């Protein structure tokens, strides 16, 4: 099994859909789809990453296929835990 270059990227967008930042340092990105349920996106980011501050309730999180450029899914942050 080979590790490919990053295929997906996580973007933070404002309520108008304008790009706020790209979370290049996001890792452990888990994506779940299930019938008749809202899709889920979970990930971690170093807390000292300045872009973590863009994760607010008014912004959205978009998952994009970097190879095709297509937006896979759009999300709203529901929970954030800062662990020290």
């Amino acid at each position: 099994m080979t590790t490919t270059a990053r295929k997906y990227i996580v973007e933070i967008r404002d309520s108008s859909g304008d790009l706020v930042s790209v979370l290049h340092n996001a890792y452990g990105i888990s994506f779940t789809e299930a019938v008749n349920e809202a899709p889920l996106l979970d990930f971690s980011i170093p807390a000292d990453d300045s872009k973590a501050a863009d994760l607010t309730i008014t912004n959205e999180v978009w998952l994009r296929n970097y190879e095709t450029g297509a937006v896979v899914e759009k999300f709203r942050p529901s929970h954030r835990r800062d662990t020290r």
Partner: protein
Amino acid sequence: MIVTKVNCDGYLAQLSEEVIGSYDTEATKAVTDIVDDLLAFQRKTVKITKGTIAPTVTRALKVDNSTVLHALLQLRESVGGYISVDNDKVLQWATDIGEDKGQQIRYRKNLLGITKETKYEELCTRLFPLGGSGIKLSDIHIENEVAAKDSDASYGYLTLSAKYACYNGWTGLGDALPDGVVVSGGEVWVVPTGHSADADWQYPTLAYDDDVASSSYYNIIFNGWSTPFELTLPETTSAKLKCYLYKRQAPETISKVKVEIYHTGAYHTVYEADFPIEEWFDIEYDEKDVSKVRLSFFNTENYRAYPHIFEVHVFGNTTDPVWHQGVDEHVLRCAIGDYDSEADYRVSYTHADFLMAWDKIAAGADIISKVLTNKFEAYPITLLEAGRLMLDELKEVPVSYSISTADLSESDEFDFDFDALQLGSIVTIIDEELGISVEARVVKIVHPDLLKPQDMRVEITTRLRDIADVIVDLYRELG
């Protein structure tokens, strides 16, 4: 290291933040119109809009102090299908998703990467759905449902045609029909069951023994009208009766018979004229619910004229037990002599409190009963539709396959394009352990780490969801 962990929900979850104080369709309504009503409760600036709502059925819905999402999912319980919100914040409701691209997975016990789970405890073949405030299926009365006909040498049979239907009050084979069960469409000649006549009428019971070789007769000399002979019968909706009578012919002094039928609280004359001797003749009238027939004979001379009544039969539809209970709660039967294979039989009945998966039951051991309560369901008819959808799934033992592509990729036996899998895709599972192949649907796809996009966990099941999920969903508070 300080780490920020983030959880995000898709747009569908937005509807769990919109509350409905009170909503009641009050009558059945098209699902698409109900969706319009529910989405109208949104207060956010950027709302979810309605896209394609594929189901075309009508339903009734009552919601109090709940969220728009919960109301939609509750509605989906009785409609089926797949609800989602796309990236443009448009609500879509499809009746089918995914494709069947002919993909196959071969399951073998010693094969790593596939976990198979068979939940025998999830099987149910008799379902008792309950709604809120004690609502149950016996609150429903079905009118004039077309019944399936069958017969053998001894009996005619009617089987309820609605899916999983059962009539309330079944007590046993051959018992009288329970209250509320009425069969219409099959008209028969009804033989009276009793009489009232004075002692001048000899052998009165022979006037209704269903035998034209025996009769009752008036045994006195009389002039003018005889005393009446009254025949009682089970109330029959009829527009015709027939008589088999006799009078003395040498000399012939009886000039006419008067035939009256009892309905709406009184007797009404339907025939007053001469009559043929020892042959059936019909008398027709406007359709009435007849419970008695009375005959009187007119003698023109003071003479012993011996009018005879061999038989009087009423043709129509009676609730009296031509029909009886059948072998179970969805069958009725009658004697073959009372059965009309050409009749358009319809059954009206109060529904039993349960639905039965008749296609899965061959013996008593096959009956596995479960109660399912949806405290949010306020309409019995919707409870019925939801119960049917639920029993469609519950009557099969659910088998789920959880596939880890990371493990499977180590196997040379797999040549499967997991990237082509979509939610809802149909996959054929060739289960070598059971020696069967089943069609199953992809219900969940998990990418544990998108930095390793080739690693996925796929859940494929023969049932859309199991009863444990249903119970949890019905009781949880969303939003």
